[in-house]
């Protein structure tokens, strides 16, 4: 890996702008845009650095692209960089969603809006289900992991148990299964 290259110098203003653009273009998910911005356009990270940092962001709780802004911002400017990158990424999405909410409060009662949103809601549910199914793909051939998927789904979606006790019971069990499998 090209460790000979010195790390790029990035100012706080550049951090804000870079993440502002990644957030602004993030229709359908910020991740592809963030990668493009960081690795291909501005070259703040190498492809390998990006993959490594992103696996950390995925592993930790919270929105993975929000975590990514923290890690990248911190890398260049510590706490100030982290806050700046986060603010950059959230500015436009927050303004947009609040504008949409205000429009909905004003016009949501119109009959067409409600009817269209009912249809879109059904499709949106399908999109999320599809995401879940695709995420399950790497678990094929691991019956115990698929069992954990099923138990989680039944406990949360059908029985409607609260998340905290379900996680407290299932997470250690599932990690133990993975530990034994690797032994």
């Amino acid at each position, binding site marked *: 890996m090209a460790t000979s290259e010195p790390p790029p110098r990035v100012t706080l203003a550049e951090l804000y702008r870079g993440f502002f653009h990644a957030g602004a273009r993030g229709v359908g998910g910020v991740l592809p845009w963030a990668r493009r911005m960081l690795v291909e356009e501005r070259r703040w990270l190498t492809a390998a650095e990006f993959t490594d940092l992103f696996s950390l962001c995925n592993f930790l709780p919270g929105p993975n692209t929000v975590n990514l802004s923290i890690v990248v911002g911190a890398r260049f400017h510590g706490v100030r960089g982290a806050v700046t990158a986060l603010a950059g990424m959230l500015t436009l999405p927050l303004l947009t969603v*609040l504008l949409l909410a205000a429009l909905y409060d004003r016009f949501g009662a119109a009959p067409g809006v409600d009817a269209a949103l009912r249809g879109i809601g*059904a499709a949106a549910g399908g999109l999320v289900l599809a995401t879940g199914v695709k995420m399950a793909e790497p678990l094929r051939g691991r019956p115990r992991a698929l069992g954990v998927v099923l138990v989680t789904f039944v406990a949360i979606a059908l029985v409607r148990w609260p998340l905290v006790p379900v996680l407290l019971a299932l997470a250690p069990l599932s990690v133990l299964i993975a530990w034994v499998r690797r032994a």
Partner: protein
Amino acid sequence: MSPLVSLALRFAVLSLLAVGGVTAVVPEVHRVVVEVHHWASDAEFTQMFVIARAAPGPNMLLVTLIGWQVAGLPGALVATAAMVAPSCTLTYLVAGVWQRFRTARWRLAIEAGLAPIAVGLVIATGWLVARGGHGGAVAYAISAVTTVLVVFTRVNPLWPVVAAGLLGLLGAV
């Protein structure tokens, strides 16, 4: 307890539980918002989910909208801050030591063990969002067809969404 304090506490806890992203905690957000606090109905919840997805940005704007619904602009800001601050702080602290453990067996086991739980939670989210419209057979058919199309074809996911919106406008859902 004031709604702002409830919002802050609820989402601060969820922030640290959102393993696999915010989509994974949507069922718990649904339980808290619809069943425990009655801040929104089932149908309103699905509508907020849809509106949040229409905006660009990370998948966490649902939380902003719930804050807005409960307590206006202060609610939106408090809910958003509560959802990001704990997980961001944790990320900031862990980022420094991460490199050291990249091949540790316990780390790989935790990753592999949390993955199926995240998958189960995302599927639960899809289920609750699809069901939240309380539509009839047509709504369920739309959800099922969208799922199959997106899993098995390379169709742009926008098309089933647009078609479903039109079906809704025509009064079919």
